[in-house]
């Protein structure tokens, strides 16, 4: 529809209800869902359970932060699960002091290269994988979907070679702290004998979410990301270095997959060759539920955080309600579609 001719600037228009709802659609959906679970099963609201949900969410949530950058540019990365496994395996090998020592339990403290080196290894592996894929996308012009589909199998294969097929387990305490540690909250202790507190992975997840939000919302780099997702050609003709920006988002998602790989290995006290299989779907679902458009140019990291939590809450709630795991899959699939449909519906009602 054509916009009517306006002669004067209108006074600031009244707050449009649809606009507000569209901002918070995923959050509203999450709150409703939590309320329903709470009513059906009071244990759901137990702080111990809620922190547990958050701990589970934080790995895919971390990767979803990186994926938000990629999807905002109109790209996609299907290889995140394999990058996570490879990075986690690299961290394990470094922590054990080389491939030869991987079978000795608790060898880390004596012969390993230390936790800091393990973290660095995981991050570097993630960044390197992302860089490799990004370069392929911009230099060879192969669609991101295809490149990262290839990456998905290549990185999984590399993980299997590195680990000789089996898991690498048993790390020292400083390694395990990153996945299993807590910041204790004594006032929540109650009669529970298990210590209650904020898990370290949750702090990492939310910390990086805030950082990513600030970058995307307030910096020139963030503005550029939205611009190339909104209109690639217009971005190029506005003087943006589209290739370098595209490369950067694949490096960023690689970084987060690497970080997620280390945190997961730390939480499980084990790096598995089959870790992260199927994570790409959960991660992409988190981003999309959070309101980010798969076509790029529209979306927010905070939405992604809500999306990731929503999937975690859903899984947890269904388990508490003793819903069979077969039915769980069906419910989760339907809810994902409904959440996105709701978001699109509200956006279509938006006026400005």
């Amino acid at each position: 529809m054509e916009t009517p001719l306006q002669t004067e600037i209108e006074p600031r228009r009244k707050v449009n209800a649809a606009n507000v709802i569209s901002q918070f659609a995923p959050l509203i959906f999450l709150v409703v869902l939590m309320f329903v679970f709470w009513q059906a099963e009071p244990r759901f609201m137990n702080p111990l359970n809620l922190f547990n949900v958050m701990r589970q969410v934080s790995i895919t949530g971390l990767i979803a932060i990186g994926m938000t950058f990629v999807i905002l540019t109109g790209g996609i990365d299907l290889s995140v699960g394999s990058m996570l496994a490879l990075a986690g395996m690299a961290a394990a090998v470094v922590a054990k002091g080389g491939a030869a020592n991987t079978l000795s339990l608790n060898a880390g403290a004596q012969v390993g290269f230390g936790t800091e080196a393990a973290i660095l290894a995981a991050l570097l592996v993630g960044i390197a994988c992302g860089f490799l894929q990004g370069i392929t996308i911009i230099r060879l012009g192969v669609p991101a979907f295809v490149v990262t589909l290839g990456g998905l199998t290549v990185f999984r294969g590399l993980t299997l070679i590195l680990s000789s097929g089996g898991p690498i387990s048993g790390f020292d305490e400083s390694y395990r702290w990153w996945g299993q540690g807590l910041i204790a909250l004594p006032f929540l202790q109650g009669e529970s004998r298990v210590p209650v507190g904020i898990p370290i992975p949750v702090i990492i997840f939310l910390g990086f979410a805030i950082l990513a939000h600030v970058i995307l919302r307030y910096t020139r780099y963030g503005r550029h990301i939205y611009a190339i997702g909104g209109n690639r050609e217009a971005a190029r003709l506005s003087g943006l270095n589209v290739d370098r920006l595209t490369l950067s988002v694949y490096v960023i998602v690689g970084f987060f997959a690497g970080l997620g790989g280390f945190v997961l290995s730390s939480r499980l006290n084990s790096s598995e060759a089959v870790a992260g299989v199927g994570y790409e779907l959960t991660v992409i679902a988190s981003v999309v539920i959070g309101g980010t458009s798969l076509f790029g140019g529209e979306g927010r990291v905070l939405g992604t955080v809500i999306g990731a939590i929503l999937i975690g809450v859903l899984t947890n709630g269904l388990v508490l309600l003793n819903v069979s795991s077969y039915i769980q899959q069906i419910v989760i699939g339907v809810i994902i579609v409904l959440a996105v449909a709701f978001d699109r519906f509200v956006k279509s009602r938006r006026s400005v």
Partner: protein
Amino acid sequence: MTLLLNMTRISKQFPGVRALDEVALEVERGEIHGLLGENGAGKSTLLKILSGAHRPDSGTITLDGQTLHFDTPQQAQSAGVVTIYQEFNLVPQLTIAENVFIGREPGNAMFFNWRRLATETRALTDRLGISIDPLTMVRDLSVAEQQMVEIARAISMRSRLIIMDEPTSALSETEVERLFGIMRDLREQGLSIIFVSHRLEEVMRICNRITVLRDGRNAGTAAISDITIPDIIRMMVGRTLADMYQGEHQRGDGEMALRVRNLNRRGNAQDPHAILLKNVSFDLYKGEILGIAGLVGAGRTEIARAIFGADAFSSADIEIDGKPVRISSPRDAIRQGIGLIPEDRKQQALFLSLTVRQNFSIASLGRFLRLGAFVDERNESTQLESYRQSLNIRMTSPEQRVGNLSGGNQQKVVIARWLAMNPKILIVDEPTRGIDVSAKAEVHALLHQMAGSGIAVIMISSELSEILGMSDRIITISEGRLTGEIARKDASEERLMAMMSPTSAPLHRAAQTN
């Protein structure tokens, strides 16, 4: 003459906007009827109601005396009302014949009858006087040829009324002539056509009568023989525009801003239909508007893109302010102080999902930084506000989505974007395509102002009246070569047409030594 279409007291309300208020439109049999009005006047809404895409809140539509209620475009089509939109509804990967008969293919439930499909399409194209193999893929056709396919499809549906929405906006002068020939033939055969165009000269040439809308109401209906262009403009804007091309500014003896030599564009494997350029050379001075005229496909846009570094297959020796520069990307060009307002606003300039403010500052974010990385949004809004006032941009707030602005206001946002980077050279490609008359006059005034302030402006346009009205100097190109240069005082439409046409081999360019 008998009445074919009679729309009376049509009203339509959208949330917050009264789009149509008791509008009437009458079209006779065998008539080409012009429907005019500025963007936002209600033309689109009226046509959407006629084609079944919208339902009116009140009012009646009769066709051939029968009252109609269209709920879907299909119903309108089967009643004989077919719309040809600006963006064609063709499937590029299918043949002409398949596109013409899409959804109505001859044959049985499983297989097409290819032979019948081809012969029937051939019969239609013959009737239109065009000769293209019906089995050509639509993606291999030019814009003008694709339009012919749309018209063939409209005729094949036994339509009585064809609505053409801005059919000439992407055509060259000769293609427009051919389209008009076909429209006249269809009129002879008793069809009626509703013709929507912003180009009033064309309306005067082809239409029998016109209906003008303004602010959702009828502003008048008249036979073309009783009316002049200034009358039409007065009806459209509700006031007189003293002169569409006033404000003639005098170019002083400015210094040379840009020197282009040996601009070439090679063919390449990716694009076998690429338009080539051969040794194009010209100069551009500070404070002048240099018009580039040529037929569609002559290479006008390619020259602009080559100078701006937007095109990988072009090369040129370029000097700016007397110093040779290397421009291999738009980034380089912008660093050298060149701006480009591209021909296709939606595809090449705007970020429709972003706000006016974000669209405004995207090419000059470096000027809005704090701490080296953070965008100073308050400063963006302040600057945008000053451009909003000086360019008369109509918007509700800096946070409005640019996609919700009218075409003219979108173009002003793009102009503001480049003014914000303080350009030395500004290239504008079809600066007034698809924008309404008063916005057009404002854009023209802005271009004069820019030139007056010392910016060197290159203006590309397929409207000769615009080229003649705006330029200080005009160069013409044909088939990728420079064919002439002429000062505005010596130029006329006839001379330009001769210089632009492919057959005029001898160079009109004055002997030039350097």
